[in-house]
């Protein structure tokens, strides 16, 4: 009992209290949870592998992606010199898959990046400004929401003509409304929070509030959502090329290759399935990565 009064005098706190007082930010917690998640780590490794073989395609392959020989058409997997076989023009599959990753990844990731800036910007504006600005912007987005996404992408790309640029443009248009809507929702929720109110009351300009408070707090949910969109975007981008609307032959791209090998399923079914397998693998990685980020960041989304 006497000890109680003695301990009330100021003294050094016990060691364990100090340990918990080490400033541990939100992002550090996210990184710690990610490091303990084997699925997300594994998926990141696979994705890093795919990006590496695409980026360093000239290093990891020996041939040229256009070089083929009619004498060696549609050779099976495991052929000496062509370990993944050859395509319908006798070109080495491994070489073309590596080079193909460049265009496929670009066509999948670029639209989401563009839409993240445009849609995120519009959503930020609509959510922060509220009122008439919000109504106009979000009703405009509703019009684009009225199209099923695949239909809109194919319609735009089909009408503008094929080509990588048009495919990226078409997919960007498709992804702007969902990203604008999610950003608007997050920002509108944030805007009602006390700390934003406090910042505004203490004289921060709109720009300062957005820059210092909104962006950092809205970033998590929006990024998680964008990552899951990349998975859709990869599939759609390759799908456009598959239809003959995006990248055109003979450029190596997974969708183009899949389409070119469609007739070959009767001759070399396994070789013909390879480009699609790459699309599937990449899309799956982005999906699982989004799941991992979502639980590490503790984001709740209904989008």
């Amino acid at each position, binding site marked *: 009992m006497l000890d109680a009064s003695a301990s009330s005098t100021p003294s050094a706190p016990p060691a364990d209290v100090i340990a918990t007082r080490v400033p541990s930010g939100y992002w550090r917690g996210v990184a710690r949870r990610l490091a303990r998640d084997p699925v997300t780590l594994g998926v990141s490794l696979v994705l890093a592998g795919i990006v590496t073989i695409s980026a360093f395609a000239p290093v990891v392959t020996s041939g040229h992606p256009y070089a083929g020989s009619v004498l060696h058409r549609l050779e099976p997997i495991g052929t000496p010199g062509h370990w993944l076989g050859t395509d319908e023009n006798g070109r080495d599959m491994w070489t073309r898959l590596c080079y193909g990753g460049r265009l496929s990844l670009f066509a999948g990731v670029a639209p989401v990046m563009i839409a993240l800036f445009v849609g995120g910007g519009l959503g930020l504006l609509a959510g922060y400004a509220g009122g008439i600005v919000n109504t106009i912007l979000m009703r405009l987005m509703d019009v684009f929401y*009225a199209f099923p*996404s*695949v*239909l809109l992408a*194919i319609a735009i790309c*089909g009408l503008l003509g094929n080509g990588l640029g048009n495919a990226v443009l078409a997919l960007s248009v498709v992804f702007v409304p969902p990203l604008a809507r999610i950003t608007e929702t997050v920002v509108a929720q944030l805007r009602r929070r006390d700390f934003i109110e406090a910042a505004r009351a203490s004289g921060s300009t709109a720009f300062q509030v957005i820059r210092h408070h909104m962006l950092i707090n809205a970033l998590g949910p929006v990024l998680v959502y964008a990552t899951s969109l990349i998975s859709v975007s990869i*599939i759609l981008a390759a799908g456009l090329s598959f*239809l003959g609307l995006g990248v055109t032959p003979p450029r190596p791209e997974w969708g183009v290759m899949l389409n070119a090998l469609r007739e070959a399923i009767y001759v070399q079914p396994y070789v013909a399935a390879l480009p699609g397998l790459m699309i599937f693998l990449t*899309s799956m990685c982005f999906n699982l990565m989004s799941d991992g980020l979502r639980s590490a960041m503790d984001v709740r989304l209904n989008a």
Partner: protein
Amino acid sequence: MLEFAARRLLLAIPVLFGVSLVVFALVHIAPGNPIDMLLPPEASPRVIAEVKAAFGFDKPLYVQYLLWLRNALTGSFGVSIFNAQPVLGQLLVALGNTLILAILAATLGFGLGIGLGLLAAAHHGSWRDKLCSAVATIGVSLPNYWAAIVLVMFTSVLHNWLPAQGMGAHSLPWWDRLQYLVLPVITLSLIPMGVVGRFVRATTLEVMGQEFVSALAAKGLTRRGIIRHVCKNAAPPVLALMGLQFGYLLGGSILVETVFNWPGSGYLLNLAIFRRDIPILQATIVLLAFLFVILNLLVDIAQAAIDPRLRR
């Protein structure tokens, strides 16, 4: 409730108007003149002018838009540039074929998805949860045009089990034509299965984590009673998602229909793109978007019917 439905209906009108404007603008921004596809390069200016006048391409853009809108509202979409047949007839036949696929694929996909999601949520954290979640994630990540090719490979190339192309001849009895449905329906059901499965799992877990569930358990309600409350709370968002997915099946089956040569609306759209058949193109996109808007409207109303809190 009626007031809510009426308000939603009114809100849909400007959206539909916007949709028609977007489609029209898209078609006219597009490079390449549809007339050039019809006529030989050496056609005389007089012939070009005549054909332009016949299709109404000689009038100013806003007149063309208003004319097209007026005709579309009365159900007349003109004639195809490619085969000079009325657009509406071709479109309705194609849409019917797509609808068959979409309804069957939705039934299969939603059924499997709800099953997977509920099973995963009920055994949260166990191996069953992981297995169900993995299946659902694979469904979401599969490029369905590739899944179609792989299915064809296994069932038609490696084994001779199922036909891989088309709908079967009209002369065949209907039960013989059923087998043509199997592969397209399975392929199309994969994405809805995955999306619905993942969403049902997440929604059910969220509802089960809410305080009212513990309260129900504490007051001694049976397991069956609790499940009923959980389902009723999880149903509206799941319903909304299923509506969207059904819309995607209607409007987004173009890739799968192309692989299977299924003569649906997506296949028609694909042909129209490559033939630059503007009347068909416009009509198909507008009609599919129109159906999508109506579908969303119905889903909103159904949601509000289940959950009175949404009738604001």
